[in-house]
């Protein structure tokens, strides 16, 4: 029973993706606040984990009570431009399957949205899709 460790939750989410994308064919993955210079026309993935709303779950004060901690994961998938979406959606399916309705180490993942095509890729020069999902974990004080 303790306040939630945000880095533990983050490591559950990011570690799962890093492990999956380390399986051949290996796909580089970059997380929040990391330097990364992509190779032109290469495949790569960006994973952004953010914590959002927190809510009361139960009665009680700073001990013997529980809160809900909610967050969102945004995963950008970049593939070569001008060769169709197939390679991108293949990665998108792998990522979607990785989190879809899973419960990992107390982190509950909701059904993902996407992969959704973004009309204005950032950075430019790629075909970009985005997979987004919310997650919830519980804090026992």
């Amino acid at each position, binding site marked *: 029973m303790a306040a939630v460790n945000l880095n533990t939750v983050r490591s559950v989410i990011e570690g799962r993706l890093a492990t999956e994308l380390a399986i051949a064919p290996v796909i580089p993955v970059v997380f929040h606040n990391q330097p990364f210079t992509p190779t032109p026309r290469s495949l790569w993935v960006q994973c952004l984990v953010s914590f959002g709303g927190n809510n*009361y*779950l*139960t*009665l*009680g*004060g700073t001990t*013997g*009570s*529980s809160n*809900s901690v909610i967050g969102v994961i945004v995963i950008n998938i970049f593939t070569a431009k001008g060769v169709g979406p197939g390679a991108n959606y293949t990665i998108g399916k792998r990522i979607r399957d990785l989190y879809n309705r899973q419960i990992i180490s107390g982190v509950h993942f*909701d059904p993902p949205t996407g992969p959704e095509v973004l009309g204005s890729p950032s950075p430019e020069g790629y075909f970009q899709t985005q997979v987004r999902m919310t997650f919830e974990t519980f804090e026992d004080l």
Partner: protein
Amino acid sequence: MAFYRGQQGSVKFEDTGGATALITSTRSWSMTVEKESLDTTALGATYRANVGGLISGSGTVEVLYTASSSDETNSFIEMVNTATDEGAAAFELLLTTGKSITFDGVITSAEYSATVGEIEVITVSFVTNGAITLGI
């Protein structure tokens, strides 16, 4: 002037005659104490007259399901299914520390539910048996 927020409340319960124990994962509670009114209007009177009658209470407690199996929370959510109930279970509903409503009572219903995407909630309803002590 002090004000209080809902999370300062709690629920305690005991079904076997000992000291009440905290019901963990309680999300909310509510209770209504009612007094019957007895009409004592005299024949020919212009205005109706009433006196107080019997006092009783009823309410609900919402508990989040945690799969606990050997504590008062488990007893609380299963007690509706007991074969004989003499109304001796002790309830203590706290508004904040040291300010509570205490009484013996009978659990009259428990609504178990599971809704996709939501935390599982059990709503337990009760009625009082005998005296109600308002220590608030």
